[in-house]
């Protein structure tokens, strides 16, 4: 076997992450019951991002990967954000939607 990354992750860690994910799921469902206006969406997105961060960092062991991996993930997310964000330069300011 050639150069290989990292120690073996103990199952405990994964189970802990899993529990955290379940809790967060509960949180979104719970929050969704209250009317926070536009905030609802943002909270939902916030929690979802947190959850995916957990999955990516531990389940997909991004945290053990090299800087290259992390940077390129960042790049991909940045591009996606730009695509969504810049579209709003149009839809937000249309005179007649």
């Amino acid at each position, binding site marked *: *076997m*050639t*150069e*290989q*990354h990292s120690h*073996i*992750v*103990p*199952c405990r860690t*994964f*189970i802990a*992450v*899993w529990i955290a*994910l*379940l809790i967060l*799921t509960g949180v*979104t*469902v719970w929050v*969704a*019951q*209250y*009317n*926070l*206006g*536009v905030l*609802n*969406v943002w909270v*939902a*997105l916030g*929690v*979802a991002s947190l*959850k*995916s961060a957990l*999955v*990516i960092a*531990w*389940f*997909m062991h991004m945290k053990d*990967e*090299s800087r*290259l*991996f992390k940077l*390129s*993930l960042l790049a*991909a*997310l940045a*591009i*996606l954000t730009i*695509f*969504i964000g810049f*579209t*709003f330069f149009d*839809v*937000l300011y249309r005179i007649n*939607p």
Partner: protein
Amino acid sequence: MSAHVHKDDTGARFGMWLFLFTELLLFGGLFILYAVYLARYPREFVTAGSQLNVWFGGANTLVLLTSSLLVAVSITTLRRGQVRLTLTLLGGTIACAALFMINKYFEWSAKIGHGLYPGSEHLHEIPPGEAVFFNIYYVTTGLHGIHVIIGALVLAWTMALIKSGRVHADDWIVLENAGLYWHLVDLIWIFIFPLYYLILH
């Protein structure tokens, strides 16, 4: 970096990650549309969204999260050499995938029963904002469903490789990559769930 590396696991993983990025942007297109139409029809999205069944969505969320856990653990067990346990875990994952699809089946057939499906008469009668919600809901969850099936197949194939001993304690990159793919399927759902099932206000 030496060209002598005949088997380059880091390279393979990097390749897989690049592929996941493409998947991310594939769904990204749908999320762009979702964002735009949500901004345009906030009220209609709520009325339509409230008609989706949170229980179906919630259940499937739990199923997928669990399946992700099983895959993650299976890598650990394989590297510890516990082949049989690994196979059971992966079997569990595929079972989760099946459960997920069964859930979807019931959920969709209920909706279709109410005449809510792309191209239906009913969608032409309800307000446009709601129609667009249901259409994008079907497209997104449909595409995700396809990914669930593909992911399950990939895992099944990996199981075969493990059985035949071609994937084992010191060469598990295939399982690693199959796992990565499965986690992506989970990731997408983590966003689909709140965006479609939980916009109640």
